[in-house]
């Protein structure tokens, strides 16, 4: 059996001039919780829709649970639960009616799961979907996805609108019932702190291209921010150096590997190393996305905070 639940091969999706997904190759291991990260419009939703056969790739291909997309769509949909970005269902139906409507499509549907998650997420089962708050709509979408008992869950912003208690409950469900049972979960999110907790793999995309794909723990053990003071320090990035910025007399380097060796080398050149510090996912995300911006002045790379407000 294939070790990968999802594998894309130079997947491309263009909308008129826009390359929403640009030769994207990702590998989602079976049994992993894969955090699919990127800014608004980075191409996450387009990729997910292509994986499910809901959008046709412009070029490239992919397999989902071993089935090629675009050919075995029904086989993929049977085995995959999907929570859409829009969280839109039939507005007049209540959650209870939506359950009755949906269950017939899925061979492994579990009514016990419906009862369990309706209770755990505190879902109003008898109100029309259109009259629910965004958070409660998200919960209903999650309920319908979880009750399918699918091998693979593709969740597009599954925590949008949820209150902290519901987010906590969602994380418990992912840890215990999904990852704990060896199911594969692909989650797109802007909530980096949530992903950081629950994901073991992350893929970071920007402008439809993959910037980074790795085990989260490995990223954290290897990525380092080095602050050094001195004259004649190297200014360029390249190789393991992902970014190099000046800040007064200090220079900051983001390294993706071999940080200690680089720091030692700087030290040999007469620099004073003030800090070699590990980074959280949020810092790495910002550093990597900022890399794509043109560096022109001494403090190039300073980012306007407002453009990342969705990450807060």
């Amino acid at each position, binding site marked *: 059996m294939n070790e990968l639940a999802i594998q894309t091969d130079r997947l491309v999706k263009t909308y008129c001039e826009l390359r929403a997904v640009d030769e994207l190759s990702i590998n989602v291991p079976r*049994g*992993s*919780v894969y955090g699919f990260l990127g800014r608004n419009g980075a191409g996450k939703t387009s990729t997910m829709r292509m994986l499910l056969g809901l959008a046709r790739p412009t070029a490239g291909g992919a397999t989902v649970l071993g089935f090629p997309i675009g050919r075995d769509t029904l086989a993929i949909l049977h085995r995959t639960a999907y929570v859409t970005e829009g969280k839109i269902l039939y507005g007049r139906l209540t959650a209870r009616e939506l359950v009755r409507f949906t269950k017939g499509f899925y061979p492994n549907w579990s009514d016990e799961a419906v009862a369990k998650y309706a209770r755990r997420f505190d879902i109003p089962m008898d109100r029309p979907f259109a009259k629910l708050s965004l958070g409660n709509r998200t919960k209903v979408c999650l309920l319908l996805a979880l009750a399918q008992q699918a091998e693979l869950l593709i969740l597009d912003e599954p925590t949008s609108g949820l209150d902290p208690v519901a987010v*906590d409950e969602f*994380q*418990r469900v*992912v*840890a*215990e019932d999904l*990852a*704990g049972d060896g199911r594969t979960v692909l989650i797109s999110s802007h909530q980096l*702190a949530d992903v*950081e*907790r*629950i*994901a*073991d793999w992350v893929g970071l995309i920007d402008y439809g291209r993959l910037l980074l794909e790795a085990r*989260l*723990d490995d990223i*954290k*053990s290897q*990525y380092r921010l080095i602050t050094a003071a001195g004259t004649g320090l190297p200014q360029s990035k390249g190789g393991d150096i992902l970014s190099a910025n000046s800040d007064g007399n200090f220079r900051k380097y983001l390294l993706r590997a071999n940080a200690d060796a680089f720091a030692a080398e700087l030290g040999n050149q007469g620099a004073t190393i003030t800090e070699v*510090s*590990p*980074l*959280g*996912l*949020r*810092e790495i995300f910002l550093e990597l996305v900022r890399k794509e911006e043109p560096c022109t002045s001494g403090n190039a790379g300073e980012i306007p905070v407002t453009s990342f407000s969705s990450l807060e």
Partner: protein
Amino acid sequence: MLLHLNPASGVPIYLQIENQVKHYVAAGALKPGDALPSVRKVAADMRINPNTVARAYQNLERDGVLRSVPGGGTYVAENPGGLLKSEKIRRLRPYARQIAVEGTQLRLEPHEIVNLVEQELQSLEVMDERVGNPNR
């Protein structure tokens, strides 16, 4: 088992678990033969990925802190002191170096740095007495 995890820090979560379990064992809060909660339970309680917990347990087993019984759970190892002394010193040396470097940078006197380490050792002993470790 009470774990305090900070997923947003740069320290990998599996390392945070390892360090805390080692601390509990060193302090006697976890005693040889004590059962640890299952990977699944820790993952569910802490809302973290089970693979992360499994990785921490495997590393702790490799280091001789824990042992697992096939199909029967994970326990604190009976004799965590089974390593060669030279190996123990090799593992501890990076931490000693870090303390020496940080302490010197903060312009502490050598004896003040040594005092700090001694205080930490004492606080472990105090914790040990409080939980009533019969092995010491």
